[in-house]
């Protein structure tokens, strides 16, 4: 097994809080057209700050949400509104699970 060392200090940020993305950044990162990102904003999967698409600022979490929504849409044959519902329900299940665990419950 080879070992590659990279022990110099790396630039770090909490992605969800400190990364900011423009519409163009998101399109590039997801390899999709701006129309699809706009559609994801319309169904509420993504919630950018700013009024017009040119001024939109997305937080880092948007990248994962967008990718997840695109995967769900592609793999399950559902539309963006359906993917938005799935994401919301997944979020809710995740928060219920952590709450249950925090309360000392078992699944």
């Amino acid at each position: 097994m080879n070992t590659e060392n990279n022990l110099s200090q790396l630039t770090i940020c909490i992605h969800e809080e400190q990364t900011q993305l423009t519409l163009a950044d998101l399109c590039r990162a997801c390899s999709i057209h701006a129309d699809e990102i706009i559609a994801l904003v319309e169904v509420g999967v993504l919630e950018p700050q700013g009024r017009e698409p040119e001024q939109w600022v997305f937080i880092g979490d948007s990248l994962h949400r967008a990718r997840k929504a695109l995967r769900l849409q592609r793999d399950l044959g559902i539309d963006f509104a359906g993917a938005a519902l799935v994401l919301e329900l997944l979020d809710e299940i995740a928060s219920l699970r952590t709450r249950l665990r925090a309360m000392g419950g078992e699944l």
Partner: protein
Amino acid sequence: MEFKDYYKIMGVARDATQDEIKRAYRKLARKYHPDVSKEPDAEARFKELGEANEVLKDTEKRAAYDQLGANYQGGQTFNPPPDWNAGFEYSGGKSAGGDAADYSDFFASMFGRDFNAGGAGRASPHAKGEDHHAKVLIDLEDSYHGATRTITLRVPAMDTQGHVVTKERVLNVSIPKGIREGQHIRLSGQGSAGSATGKAGDLYLEIEFRPHPLYRVDGRDLYLDLPVAPWEAALGATVKVPTLGGIVELKIPEGSASGRKMRLKARGIPSNPPGDCYVILSIALPPAHTEAAKELYRKMAHDLAFNPRTKLGV
């Protein structure tokens, strides 16, 4: 190479109609989609399913597969006859799930490794390298105080002969103070190299906490079970509570019931706003090992005339 029984994977009969195959795929895709599924082997199952669907949903590929597969069982060693797929023409079409690179050797021997490989724009000289993802386990304390941790990742890589080997990659990562479970640390430029003029991709580390002996975590809040003596709960007391920031004193109000939740403000994960630490009282019974202890219990039973089951009507 193993023969793959795509019909078995999809759970359909060999004479299933295209509609039946489509329905079976949709149903199983919902069950095993890695973003949705809680099944432990969801990712592998979903990949297998995508591959089976890729073949069976396409009448041309299905015909080629059927001709070949008539004499094989799933798991059997498969030796492709030379030029066996000659005479079949594949019109391609967009792949439904996963990357072509993920397909099995069996699939590759039939339809070629390059089949549908990559999406449009992949080959652009300005393309950014792929982002990498990994999960890392840290201690709750690392988030509370901030820390520098050496993290070892296992990365599949290609050696000079083209074999896949596992490389170990050691990174020195500073854990930002206040990071929460499920959040990601982004290491800029630590993903795959980009093509020609493209930037390297990023590496995302998803944070997971090791189970803590004392605290349970809910977002930025912590939960701690605090044992109290019956008299502390009944009469009220000031007791010591361990928090991540050190020991604090907590005033237990008199007449506290077991399960009472008390909040230590801003003693949770130090983000903005900081989380709280919830203390759940749990009344611990002193053991009745000695005659003196037994006598005290008997005295209480006699003097207090306490029925804990009045609400049950008994």
